[in-house]
């Protein structure tokens, strides 16, 4: 059964107001910016965003007023540092106040790992001695029943939906992803459902020819969106490189509320969809991000 649909339909059906959403699970690569921009265009409100670092995607959603709560290790701009919208929301309540549950990269991975395992929590030694448990009331300090040492209990997270950008998928959501994956697998397994955003839709046979490269079981996938260029400005291994300058432009433009409105209009509100965004980006700029060379992996033999 094909689960192919447009980004517009996928967001309308599976990211309703008040959803908890994991995005940016792969860290600096494979960030589903196209999905985030559709959420902004549809003015979906009261979202809880969950992720390790999201680069500028969370900052954009916060600045657009879509977010009620952030559960993350880091929110900013990897190229330029601080995220102006995140700062404005936390410091001045612009566009409105934000609830923040602080994590580290490790603890947000553990929370989603626990969610995917159906376990209530996972213990760690990380964050002992820090003030992070003080700004995330979900954590519990405890004592190991085995060794008697201090531990931190990280409660599980089971988000409503994980939005994951991948290199290729079949139309049923059997998806191949490669490169560094961050917490993509944990996010997929912890969430109730998965939206796959793929650079390419390929025949089922291509996917099952290499089952080790599959990200998650397709029975959890509710929608497959074919969105080439959908991760720009973040990179997709084997498809395009990172647009560093775009992050700096964002940083400069969004320094003020007015600048942010201008940026949002230009890159989100005034473009209809990702195809329109890429057209606006222009052929020359896209050429500059193309691969300089291919580096194919050696085939593996699944014979028996």
């Amino acid at each position, binding site marked *: 059964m094909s689960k192919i649909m447009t980004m517009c339909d996928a967001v309308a059906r599976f990211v309703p107001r008040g959803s908890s959403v994991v995005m940016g699970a792969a860290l600096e690569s494979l960030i589903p910016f196209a999905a985030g921009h559709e959420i902004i265009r549809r003015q979906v409100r009261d979202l809880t965003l969950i992720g390790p670092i999201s680069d500028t995607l969370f900052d954009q959603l916060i600045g657009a007023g879509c977010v009620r709560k952030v559960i993350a290790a880091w929110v*900013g701009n990897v190229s330029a540092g601080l*995220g102006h919208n995140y700062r404005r929301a*936390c410091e001045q309540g612009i566009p409105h106040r934000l609830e923040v549950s602080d994590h580290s*990269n490790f603890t947000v991975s553990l929370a989603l790992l626990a969610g995917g395992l159906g376990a209530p929590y996972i213990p760690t030694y990380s964050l*002992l001695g*820090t003030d992070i448990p003080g700004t995330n009331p979900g954590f519990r300090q405890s004592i190991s029943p085995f060794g008697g040492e*201090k531990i931190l209990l990280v409660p599980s997270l089971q988000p409503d939906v994980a939005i994951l950008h991948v290199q290729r998928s079949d139309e049923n959501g059997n998806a191949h992803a490669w*490169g560094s994956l961050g917490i993509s697998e944990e996010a997929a397994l912890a969430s109730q459902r998965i939206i796959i955003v793929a650079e390419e839709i390929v025949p089922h046979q291509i996917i099952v020819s290499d089952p080790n490269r599959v990200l998650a079981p397709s029975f959890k996938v509710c929608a497959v969106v074919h969105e080439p260029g959908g991760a720009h400005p973040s990179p997709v*291994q084997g498809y395009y490189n990172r647009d560093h300058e775009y992050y700096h432009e964002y940083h400069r433009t969004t320094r003020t509320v007015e600048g942010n409105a201008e940026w949002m209009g230009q890159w989100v509100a005034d473009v209809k969809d990702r195809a329109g965004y890429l057209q606006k980006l222009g052929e020359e700029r896209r050429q500059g991000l193309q691969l300089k060379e291919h580096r194919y992996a050696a085939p593996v033999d699944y014979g028996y």
Partner: protein
Amino acid sequence: MPRLWIMDTEMDYTPQEIMVAAAAREIRDGEIVFTGMRLPLIAFALAKQMHAPNAVGLFECGLVRDTPAPEPLYTMADPPNIAGALWATRMINMMGLLQRGAVDLGFIGGAELDRFGNLNTSYLGNPESPKTKLPGSGGAADIAGLSRRFVVIMAHEKRRLVERVDYITSPGFGDGQGWRERVGLRQGGPSAIITTLCVLGFASSTGEAVLRSYHPGQSVASVRAETGWDLRVAEDVHETESPTAEELTIIRRYDPQGFWTR
């Protein structure tokens, strides 16, 4: 990192370049290094080519490398860092290696640092209504808590090097020697703070930062004047070794546009 000054010496280099060279010297051959972002990415590449050819780099996005990336990197997940990696995997495997005790050295950055090497990258002021909301931990709290030792790279300004941080994102020695053990951390702590002006080490008896070396053009007095507490000075304090011409060549090869080091 801000561009504070260019040093007026026989060989021109920036504070960031001497920081990279100093950071590379913290990496010993054969070590497993949790490589952070920005300057440490270049320091790892430099150390690999100079004195630590057998060092292995871990990147929290889920990468292990034993060779520098073939091209300059802006982020650890840039495609050149994945090409030719020893392992491309999940972040939790990197963090598992860290918690399991496999990581000798980790690099982190800091916005605010105190005399016991605690770092704040979360909130300036009261977290309930912060004066400044900083981006947060990322992996820094994990690296500071779980690596065998860690090194901080940061800009040296009086408002950043403070008596006591507002919020501990990444734990140093807390309020002094014995604190880490008391809160349940099993090992580690900061071994060096590399700033735009100097290198700080830590006194093992107190867990307090001491001035180990000042960069050329600086002095004990100038560093102390830019530090927000009464900074102690090591008995053998000296000038930081300048980067050699060979080191500068390598640094500039990895940052040809000077994006991080100019």
